[in-house]
């Protein structure tokens, strides 16, 4: 039994997303599909799942060519997909999500709830998933939500399961649990495609590793034949420095002081619950933690985008608790937001317009109500040069740029002054290795120039590589503080809310 994609080419307007790609997976085999963001992995999987139609090439199951016009066709053919962004209805129960589209019914379309629950319980027990069929999805941690996705796939009797970046939302401990589940699926005879950009994980779990770069399959290797550096080189196409090069930190005065901060989320729950910490000049403090543990709300509160319910935010001794985003900017706080396309840039605006977005109202960019566009263009030209933004010009819409270059535009805009505090959220999410290296080095440079730096990232590797000090957030509280030499295991435990980490004091 084998699934084979042969000679897949997918042409989008202006982009060749897949170029003669070949990939096979047999039953009981785990194939890792490795590549940078934008290498064409997701396009390939969307073709396999019937969401895109290939420009040319064939999909075969057991040697017979198949054509998928919709996900429904792919499901019927025995293909299941666990998407990176879970396809779960947040207000439905686990059982409702599992049966959606394949509902057991009694007469007249009435849903047989008992049967639905039984199905979930059976699958859950068989693969030791431990999921309550009656729980509401939005109340569940992401790790459990992922298991619901797996149950969904199993309920539809998939023979081939695609996991798209499955570990990006999990804590290290959850990753181990996830790998056990994948192994039990393998033992059950399922063929598994594991999409990732994490080298270590591919080496650990895969039987075979296929590497994609710029829309092509460039290599196929066995885990025992390569190491991480070798994989990175195959993925990027040149040798890559995997560690951030930085000197010992020399922390000086306290710049940011957060005291008993409490912040509500959009649903009026306490996303941040009485958190206190400080960031000093000349140090990088990293906030680790699984997404959704209050990081977003913390950053919004610190940058003036969300008014805290209680507590205090002090910047160099001034109370900035209810300061506006503009006041924070004028206090020399640089903010790299977590979603560059939603809140970092105005996508249809040009590079120039985006670069002056935070300072257009000040001299020399404007006098009264009149903008000085020559001045703006001069600034944009200088920053594009200085920050190595690869763009056809400063007058093109920023939406035309790649993710990495978009991120550099934001970094250029925010760092181009005497910065006292950097708040960077997910600074390298979804961008290429070259840009990651560059942005990391700029952040370290700001530190060395005397800025206080606060990094929030759900990529533990990134937090550990950059930070001089690490705080772990769990359910709106700080579950532990570590120095840069702490082990992944210790931090991983704290990310799960274990209070065995250090510095836990009742007050």
């Amino acid at each position, binding site marked *: 039994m084998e699934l084979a994609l042969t000679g897949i080419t997918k042409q989008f307007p202006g982009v060749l997303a897949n170029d003669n790609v070949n990939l096979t997976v047999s039953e009981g085999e785990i194939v890792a599909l490795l590549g940078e963001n934008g290498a064409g992995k997701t396009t390939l999987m969307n073709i396999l*799942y019937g*969401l*895109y139609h290939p420009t040319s090439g064939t999909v075969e199951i057991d040697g017979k060519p198949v054509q998928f016009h*919709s*996900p*429904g066709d792919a*499901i019927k053919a025995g293909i299941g*997909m666990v*998407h990176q962004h879970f*396809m*779960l*209805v*947040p*207000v*439905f129960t686990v059982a*409702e*999500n599992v*049966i*959606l*589209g*394949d*509902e057991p*019914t009694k007469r*007249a*379309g*009435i*849903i047989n709830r008992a049967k639905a629950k039984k199905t979930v319980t059976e699958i859950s027990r068989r693969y030791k998933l431990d999921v309550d069929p009656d729980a509401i999805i939005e109340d569940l941690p992401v790790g459990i939500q992922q298991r619901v996705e797996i149950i*969904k796939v199993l309920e539809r009797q998939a023979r081939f399961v695609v996991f798209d970046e499955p570990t990006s939302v999990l804590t290290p401990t959850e990753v181990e649990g996830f790998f056990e589940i994948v192994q039990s699926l393998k033992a059950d005879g399922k063929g598994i495609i594991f999409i990732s950009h994490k080298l270590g994980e591919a080496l650990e779990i895969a039987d075979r590793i296929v590497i994609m770069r710029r829309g092509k399959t460039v290599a196929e290797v066995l885990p025992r034949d390569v190491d991480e550096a070798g994989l990175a080189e195959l993925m990027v196409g040149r040798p890559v420095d995997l560690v951030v090069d930085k000197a010992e930190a020399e922390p000086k005065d306290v710049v940011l002081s957060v005291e*008993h901060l*409490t912040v*509500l989320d959009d649903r*009026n729950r*306490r996303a941040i*619950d*009485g*958190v*206190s*910490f*400080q960031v000093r000049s000349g140090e990088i403090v990293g906030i680790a933690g699984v997404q959704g543990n209050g990081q977003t709300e913390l950053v919004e509160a610190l940058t003036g985008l969300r*008014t*805290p*319910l*209680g*507590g*205090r935010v002090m910047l160099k001794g001034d109370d900035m*608790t*209810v300061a506006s985003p503009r006041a924070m900017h004028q206090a020399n706080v640089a903010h790299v937001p977590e979603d560059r396309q939603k809140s970092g840039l105005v996508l249809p605006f040009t590079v120039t317009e985006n670069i002056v977005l935070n300072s257009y109202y000040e001299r020399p960019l404007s006098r009264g109500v009149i903008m000085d566009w020559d001045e703006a263009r001069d600034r944009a030209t200088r920053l594009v040069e200085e920050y190595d933004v690869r763009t056809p010009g400063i007058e093109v819409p920023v939406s035309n740029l790649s993710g990495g270059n978009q991120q550099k535009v934001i970094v250029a805009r925010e760092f181009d002054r005497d910065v006292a505090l950097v708040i960077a959220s997910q600074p390298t999410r979804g961008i290429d290795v070259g840009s990651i290296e560059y942005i990391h080095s700029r952040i370290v440079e700001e530190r060395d120039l005397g800025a206080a730096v606060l990094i929030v990232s759900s990529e533990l590797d990134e937090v550990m590589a950059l930070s001089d000090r690490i705080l772990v957030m769990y359910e709106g*509280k*700080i579950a532990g*503080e570590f120095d840069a030499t702490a082990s992944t295991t210790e931090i991983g435990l704290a990310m799960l809310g274990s209070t065995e980490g250090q*510095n*836990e*004091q*009742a*007050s």
Partner: protein
Amino acid sequence: MAVTTSTDIVEKVRSTPEERRATAIGIVLVAIAAFVLWVFALGVDSSYVSTFNLSLPGDPDLTWAVSSQVLSFVVAAIIAFIGGWVLRRTHVKWTNLGLAIALTLFALAFLTWAAADKSFSLVGMLRSTVILSVPVTLGALTGLMCERVAIINIAIEGQLLTAAFVGTVAGSAWGIWAGLIGAMLTGAILGLVLAVLSIRYRIDQIIAGVVINIFALGLTSFLARRVLSVTPELNSPGRFSSHKIPLLGDIPVLGSMFFNHNMFVYGTYALVLILHFGFFYTRWGLRSRAVGEHPKAADTVGIDVYWTRYRNVVLGGLIAGFGGAFLTLAQVSRFEENLTAGIGYIGLAAMIFGRWMPFGALGAGLVFGFALTLQQKLGILGTPIPSEFLSMTPYLVTIIVVAGVVGRSRPPAADGQPYIKD
């Protein structure tokens, strides 16, 4: 570094939204209590008695007489107490309950004041509330059918109006059942127009709805002037008659209120039950709700998002058509220009007030039905309130309810967003 976990010592920068809302509502309630005391209690002669008739003509006599002033004093005291309790913010979660009780009492005090030294048919009023709630509830159910699959339907008003017109003409020409069918098909066709504009052409759903409403008002007004005024025989369709339900219809007060009506009223009850059951117990409902909450998730499990949306919007149109038929084939039996006068929009408000639930739509429909009744009946009683102000009542209640009373409820997550397959 200390990690603080105790949250009770938090020095508050501001209160939670619920707490601020409770404060606002508390202040309003205290003001209402003062108003009741000042106008309703001290504004009437202490010897006046308000007499409420609890039976319809022909039924055994049942009346309730109460001193206008004493009742208002009692109501003012209770509302003031509730207001003070809400202001203390000890049980913020129960704010809405306190508000509901206080507003009901306010309505009672208001009626007592209006009926001071007079006799007033309370049952007649409640019965009329039920009747007038029908188009509002049906409008709300139409909106709910659409918004549960994430299509915002502003066009309910136009659907009701056009269906009412077609109901009149078809009913006059071929009999009331033909009128009913014609009206329902009209609602469905306009639903289909909305669906095509917003699903296929991805026109902003609010704009598409407004366009339909303007078109409906213009077309029906034109035809009413040019056709109905010269051929009045096309504007006298006759009516669906009332049928008393055995046993239930004989219960005092409640029987007259709920169980002695025409089939539109019973049809509305049935629809509420059917939709509740349909949305929460059947495959159709599960899929519809999934499409409204997370269309991409529905798509990836093989559910046709577009088809689901088309189907529900057209079915919703049938309901709106049923409501339009009620207007000209039961409530009155002739069409007039702009007969609906905003009932469709009030229906939309009722859908929101009812939190996108069928039973909520029914309850909200009754509240608005009461407001519409006040507008009609208080004119007859001869209160000192100017009639222009009285005719504002339903719309005023709509604004107050939607802006203030509802609080924060969650619409379907994808509401109003077109689904784009990539």
